[in-house]
């Protein structure tokens, strides 16, 4: 395995010997990209044959070789997961050397077995890459992540879903947009993360020590959404993505343009999506359309050898329709809705109209980042980010009030970070940092309704430090972080006359993570980790008070809640053998003390709108454990068969009853047939897949209004092919989800009370890389 330091040391050793190498003053500038996706490859080793000269590519794939002699004619470029490229410089006549690497075993998923320092996203084993994102352009963030084992999503119909990792979501699973904790209304189960996945290059799940350096209230895991660095190409380049889908008669367009002009690199990424009413197997899901318009811009500039700056600006704007038949008045309405086969208000005809109930959300992010190289072994990152989140939810209301939001919240946040990385002797790395987050959350009084959650300001300051040690066959990571949070809450009383209630909270939270990784042989490693940490109660858990329309219940917070404490242990074995078999397993156990959950009360509260069940935020002792298993087998270089199984159990230990809204166990099979070349096309792929979701049997009948839905199996098919032209590449794909148009309901979709899940969907798409 090539070691980054060997190269760095070789490089500096060579510099030192400059004195007698006067004749060798050629330099070479280039960059390394993935041949298939065009993405930059970071940390690839570039070596000059027959010498000890060499370097490692930057995060954007670029590299510089200096003091080359005329006799230095051959370059070796290598990176884990790619075939080694040997480049003869004889025919190269200056400029920027463009090097493309081909995936090593193209039909295997990328498996990270490098002992070098990789970015957090590269290290993550649970991730979605840019090709999957491009071919899943019709899906939202959570939908894309669902393909990864151990990840599911909590949905409120087709337009709203949030990722669930090992049973944790919402307040317990922060989503990092470009490294910044998404600042919005994550507490709501019916609030989707406000991120356009098409802006991202990778979506990955961070655990343990990797997640420690991010400020976000988690119990260990986080979802990181990262855009690609700007490619080093000097000419204008980019990609365009267009798709159509049959279910909802939707279409989307994404355009990405980028250029690395001397001195300044830029990238612009825009997405437009529109979809009308979706269709269950047997009827339209009236008022489930979605509209989305997003734009993001990136700038990168190298000021000098020591300072690099970059800026990122993104704007996400959406309007989402909520199934009309799911809007209920009280518990009697819910009981009536449960008895129906077809939801109330179901229309015979398709429509693009989005009426109440609906949500409109805007989310804007600005991030400024500077990297300062003190020397080649020590550097500093400085980051400032600000976010604005504006969420309005419209209910069906009397008068003309359906155009007045029933909930209207704005959230401003500022974030500051200073991070320090030092490469110490003996392959030790030390990272440390300081972060500050300010959040201002305000209800807009236009609603004419008492807000469900109060206004607040939150100030949070955090410190982290982590150590990593790389050895030949072992990696050790250890880290800790501490956060202190001040919550300044101003609520409105539910008693008459209305008055202002103030609460001031001071919370501390800490995290501790340990991890060991051992390489048994080429391509095989095991890893084990322990995470200990606390999570402070969120404002909704402390002070919610009122009727939560979507669930037909009264929710009450508890201002005396204590922080949750969680400890998670996991063990993972990943490996491939004989270039035939690939195995990925992940076993985990998490114990959570003071686990905060909404507990149904015996009380049925009588109001003028009828009777409502009361739910209170309470704490208990709970544990969640499970296993994710993935096994792939290559029958030939063309045919791959893959099986996935995820098992999860969540249990409330104190009350000896199951935890609600825990994902069902799942089984997935797929076969992929891939031809590198056929009839002038490349990478011709046909995939068939079958997914079986088991019934959630770990639940008591009195824990829900209805029994959990039955298990179901869905069949899907996907076909794609590339066509390469001189200056661009086309990729076309067709896929069918729920091919047999099966009528089913999913336990993790809150619309299951009212309607069936989505019926057949055919998607056709075209990606152009130029």
């Amino acid at each position: 395995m090539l070691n980054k330091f060997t190269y760095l040391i070789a490089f500096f050793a060579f510099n030192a010997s400059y004195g007698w190498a006067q004749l060798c003053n050629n330099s070479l500038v280039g960059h390394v990209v993935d041949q298939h996706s065009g993405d930059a490859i970071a940390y690839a080793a570039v070596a000059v044959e027959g010498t000890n000269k060499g370097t490692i590519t930057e995060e954007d794939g670029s590299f510089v070789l200096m003091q080359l002699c005329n006799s230095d004619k051959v370059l070796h470029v290598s990176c884990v997961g790619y075939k080694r490229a040997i480049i003869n410089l004889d025919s190269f006549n200056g400029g920027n050397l463009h090097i493309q690497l081909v995936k090593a075993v193209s039909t295997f998923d990328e498996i990270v077995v490098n002992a070098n320092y990789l970015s957090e996203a590269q290290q993550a084993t649970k991730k979605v890459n840019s090709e999957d994102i491009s071919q899943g352009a019709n899906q939202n963030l959570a939908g894309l992540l669902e393909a990864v084992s151990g990840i599911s999503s909590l949905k409120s119909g087709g337009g709203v879903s949030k990722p669930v990792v090992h049973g944790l979501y919402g307040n317990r699973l922060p989503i990092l947009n470009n490294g910044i904790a998404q600042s919005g209304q994550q507490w709501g189960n019916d609030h989707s993360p406000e991120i356009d996945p098409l802006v991202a290059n990778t979506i990955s799940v961070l655990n343990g020590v990797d997640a420690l350096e991010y400020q976000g209230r988690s119990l260990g895991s986080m979802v990181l959404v990262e855009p690609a660095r700007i490619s080093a190409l000097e000419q204008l380049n980019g990609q365009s993505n267009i798709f159509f889908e049959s279910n909802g008669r939707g279409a989307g367009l994404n355009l990405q343009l980028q250029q690395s002009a001397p001195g300044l690199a830029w990238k612009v990424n825009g997405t437009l999506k529109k979809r009308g009413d979706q269709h269950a197997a047997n009827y339209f899901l009236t008022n489930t359309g979605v509209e989305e318009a997003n734009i993001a811009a990136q700038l990168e500039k190298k000021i000098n050898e020591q300072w690099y700056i970059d800026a990122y600006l993104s704007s996400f704007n959406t309007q989402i329709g909520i199934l009309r038949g799911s809007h209920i008045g009280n518990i009697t309405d819910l009981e009536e809705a449960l008895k129906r086969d077809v939801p109330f208000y179901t229309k015979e005809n398709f429509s693009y109209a989005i009426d109440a109930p609906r949500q409109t959300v805007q989310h804007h992010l600005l991030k400024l980042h500077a990297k300062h190289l003190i020397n080649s072994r020590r550097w500093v990152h400085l980051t400032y980010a600000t976010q604005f989140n504006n969420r309005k939810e419209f209910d069906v209301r009397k008068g003309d009030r359906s155009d007045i939001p029933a909930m209207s919240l704005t959230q401003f946040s500022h974030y500051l970070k200073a991070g320090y990385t030092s490469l110490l002797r003996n392959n030790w790395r030390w990272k440390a940092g300081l972060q500050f987050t300010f959040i201002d959350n305000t209800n807009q009084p236009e609603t004419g309704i008492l807000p469900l959650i109060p206004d607040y300001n939150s100030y949070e300051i955090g410190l982290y430090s982590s150590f990593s040690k790389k050895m030949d066959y072992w990696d050790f990571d250890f880290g800790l972080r501490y956060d202190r949070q001040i919550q300044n809450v101003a609520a409105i009383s539910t008693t008459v006359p209305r008055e202002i209630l103030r609460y001031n909270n001071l919370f501390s939270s800490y995290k501790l993570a340990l991890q060991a990784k051992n390489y048994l042989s080429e391509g095989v490693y095991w890893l084990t980790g322990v995470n200990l940490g606390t999570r402070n109660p969120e404002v909704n858990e402390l002070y919610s008070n009122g009727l939560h329309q979507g669930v037909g219940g009264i929710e009450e917070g508890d201002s005396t809640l204590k922080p949750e404490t969680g400890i998670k242990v996991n063990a993972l074995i990943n490996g491939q053998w004989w270039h035939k078999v690939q195995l990925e397993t992940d076993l985990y156990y998490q114990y959570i003390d003071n686990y905060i959950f909404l507990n149904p009360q015996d009380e049925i509260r009588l109001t003028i709108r009828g009777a409502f069940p009361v739910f209170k935020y309470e704490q208990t002792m709970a544990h969640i454990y499970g296993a994710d298993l993935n096994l792939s087998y290559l029958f030939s270089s063309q045919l791959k068969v893959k099986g996935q199984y995820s098992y999860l159990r969540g249990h409330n230990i104190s009350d000896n009853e199951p935890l609600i809204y825990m994902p069902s166990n799942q089984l997935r099979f797929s076969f992929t047939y891939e031809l590198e070349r056929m009839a002038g096309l490349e990478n011709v792929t046909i995939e068939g897949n079958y997914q079986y979701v088991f019934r959630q049997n770990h639940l008591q009948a009195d824990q829900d209004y209805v029994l959990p839905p039955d298990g179901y199996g869905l069949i899907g098919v996907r076909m794609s092919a590339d066509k390469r032209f001189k200056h661009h590449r086309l990729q076309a794909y067709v896929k069918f989800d729920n091919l047999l148009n099966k009528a089913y309901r999913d336990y993790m979709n809150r619309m299951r009370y009212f309607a069936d899940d989505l019926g057949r969907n055919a998607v056709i798409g075209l990606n152009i890389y130029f």
Partner: protein
Amino acid sequence: MKKVFHILMFMVAIIGLSSCDKDDPVIPNEGELITTLIYTLTPHNGGESVVLSFKDMGMGQPEVVTGTLKANTSYSGAIRLLNEIENPAIDISEEVKEEGDEHQFFYLSTIEGLNVNYTDVDEDGLPIGLATQVVTMAAGSGELTIILRHEPAKGAPGVSDGDITNAGGETDIEVTFEVDVE
């Protein structure tokens, strides 16, 4: 390194200066809220009116006033809806009347022989239920439940006769009175 430190201190100072207590929230004007339902029953042949009322200020303890009807008597019934959070109280029944086509009251009774009939109509000629005629038969007792549905299927079978089965819509009001007929 010194430069980095200065930039950092500057950024902390900017944010530090903007920190202050959260401003008082603006108390929303809860114009649409219904706190009170008053059902006044006036006997056709003269005599004292019976008033049933349900007042819920959102504090979990609604005030319910019930009454006693006379046997074999015909009453005209009138519903009044109020928002008493606001001062002075707002009459919501006017709004329901104006949007009669989007609303309908349903009267469900477990009292033997008690009948409620609609005496008002919306612009489509379908009942609203703000005005009713109530006829009692023999003496007895039971529950009278009054339900207001928003956006029901007013044309669905049985709905215009007061049968809620096919009505759908969202419940804006659902109150139950214990009523004696003597």
